[in-house]
């Protein structure tokens, strides 16, 4: 365990170093980059990635994955928009939208925990399902694909666009989420259960942890995270669209994995995820300032992701050993099928 903590500290330190290098490099390329106002403002553009990635860390910690989170973002956005446009109070609409995403996450979790189908397949199916439902809601209320529903009340739009003590609200939300999920993960029994389920689900079950409900709860939280991200985006742009966040899944998973969470589960930290999402965001923003299009920056993110994993495996022989020792019982079971 101490090894694990030491390793996490190291990896997070490396991420912070990477962040500082980024700031120096981009600062020297484009002079306006290091302006504090600019940096805070730019964080706004990708804070929804971090908001979705933090609960996603839990899912990946248990050894699962949730690729439906992008669809959930669109679902929450369009649900809130459509309910509002039918005359409901915007905050009621927001609450209903969040409830919808919780239900979405719950469905993911229940299917994963109770049917024995692989999480990737389940969430792939629900990804189609939720994005489809979002489209149906949008199409049924004839919201046009590109503009969506706009004209929200000022206080909702201000939610993501105003600041407290000079810090934009979404960033405050990100920090609160990071502190909350980080504390829950590292200091509560529930957090330890999540990690233990990822390390060895059978051992967890035999030691009396309600593994199924632990798994369900992580997907539920991931759904909620996607919903929050989608609503922040809606408020930020001032318009609700069904395809909002549909491209988010690559950066979200990148943030989690770059943050040091093992895709096999059982190892990772929320703080790492949060720092990694800021690293990704800065690289996107910096490259865009250096006049690259947002699609071209995906090259850099992809390289970052692969290099991070290769580097980490090269530097830490123990992980490799652990992975190998983990693989053998799995394989013997696979052979039996």
């Amino acid at each position, binding site marked *: 365990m101490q090894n694990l903590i030491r390793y996490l500290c190291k990896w997070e330190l490396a991420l912070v170093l990477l962040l500082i290098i980024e700031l120096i490099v981009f600062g020297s390329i484009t002079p306006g980059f290091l302006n504090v106002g600019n940096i805070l403002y730019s964080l706004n553009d990708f804070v929804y990635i971090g908001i979705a990635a933090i609960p996603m860390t839990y899912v990946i910690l248990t050894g699962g994955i949730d690729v439906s989170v992008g669809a959930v973002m669109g679902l929450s956005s369009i649900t809130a928009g459509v309910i509002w446009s039918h005359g409901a109070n915007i905050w009621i609409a927001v609450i209903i939208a969040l409830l919808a995403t919780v239900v979405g996450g719950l469905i993911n979790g229940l299917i994963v925990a109770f*049917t024995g189908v692989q999480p990737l397949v389940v969430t792939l199916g629900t*990804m*189609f399902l939720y994005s489809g439902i979002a*489209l*149906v809601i949008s199409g049924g209320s004839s919201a046009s694909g590109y503009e969506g529903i706009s004209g929200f009340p000022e206080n909702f739009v201000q939610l993501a666009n105003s600041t407290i003590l000079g810090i934009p609200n979404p960033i405050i939300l990100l920090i609160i989420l990071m502190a909350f999920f980080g504390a829950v993960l590292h200091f509560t029994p529930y957090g330890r259960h999540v990690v233990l389920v990822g390390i060895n689900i059978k051992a967890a079950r035999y030691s009396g942890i309600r593994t199924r409900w632990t798994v369900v709860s992580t997907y539920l939280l991931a759904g909620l995270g996607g919903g929050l991200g989608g609503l922040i985006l809606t408020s930020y742009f001032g318009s609700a669209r069904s395809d909002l966040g549909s491209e988010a899944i690559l950066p979200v998973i990148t943030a989690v994995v770059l943050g040091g969470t093992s895709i096999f589960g059982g190892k990772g930290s929320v703080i790492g995820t949060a720092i990694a999402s800021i690293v990704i965001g800065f690289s996107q923003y910096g490259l865009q300032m250096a006049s690259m299009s947002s699609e071209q920056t995906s090259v850099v993110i*992809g390289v970052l992701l692969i290099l991070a994993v290769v580097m980490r495996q090269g530097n830490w022989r123990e992980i490799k050993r652990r992975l190998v020792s983990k693989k053998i019982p799995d394989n013997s079971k696979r052979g039996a099928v």
Partner: protein
Amino acid sequence: MPFIIKLIKAREVSIMIFMAAFFIIAGAINPEFLTGSSLSLLLKSSMILLLLAIGQSFVLITGDIDVSVGSTMGLSAAVCGALLVNGIPFWGMCLAVLMVGLIIGFINGVGVAQFRVPAIIMTLGMLGIIRGAMLIFTGGKWIEDIPNYYKKLSSLDFLGLNLAVWIGLVIMVIIHLILTRTKFGRNFFAVGDNVEGARMVGLPVKRVKILAFMFSGISASFAALIFVMNIGFIPNETGSGIELQVIAAAVLGGVSLTGGVGSVIGAGLGAVFLTTISSSLVYMKVPAYWNNTISGFLLLIIVVGDAKLSQFVKNRTSRKSKFNKPVELDGKEGDSHAKSNKVLM
């Protein structure tokens, strides 16, 4: 081995039953859907997904996953378009396009087999890299003005079936024979079924994995060739998002994400089924935006139903074999997670 074959057969049969049911419902609502011309159009439009699903099956059967196929298809299509516009002859163009897929697949394979990067991470990263590379290559512009001779290939028919359909079917049958009848083909199943076992009996595990990714890359290039033929221009977003449909098609057709189980025929059927759903909606007078909802719902039903079925089959067969006792001990709960860990390797 007979059990696995039985299982595969069950998967293919169950998807056929679902497809037949779907055709009957769609045909009952609108008989026009069952006419020859609309069915051949359906086959023609499912060929891109079918080719990708065949390539993906190799990777899935070896126990990995390839989410970069959509962007590989995009880059291949862009290369294809650029070469055609610049007047490069047909065969030279084909060779170059296939090389694109081959090289990308090779990089994926080396990353996974040699550097031990988990397949989903490696190919997710490559997805971003290739998509960006495509946009840098095209400069963000659509490629138009594809020469007419190439576009006309899409309307060539032999014996009532389209050229693209023939290409797809021939490739599917050849690959099915290779996978099931040759030692080379069975290596993929062996590696996917039990990596350590395969290594111990002396199979070239790394080479097999790299080859699987290369096949997946080439299939994406083939799909790109057909895409350019059918569509006639190359938008920037060519192939984006299709990777998840491809995996869905393969899974629908009974290819297991845990490796070692599946057939290209099944994957092909899955691809045709997914296309059937989307193209039947027009005939059933359902607005097109229902497509994803229905596909997602059916995918979940079939996959969950099939998981229950195979659990049942597994429990029955494991009683007969003393080697399978641990599976029984395992219970059902958490199985998915133990499996998912393997999937993501």
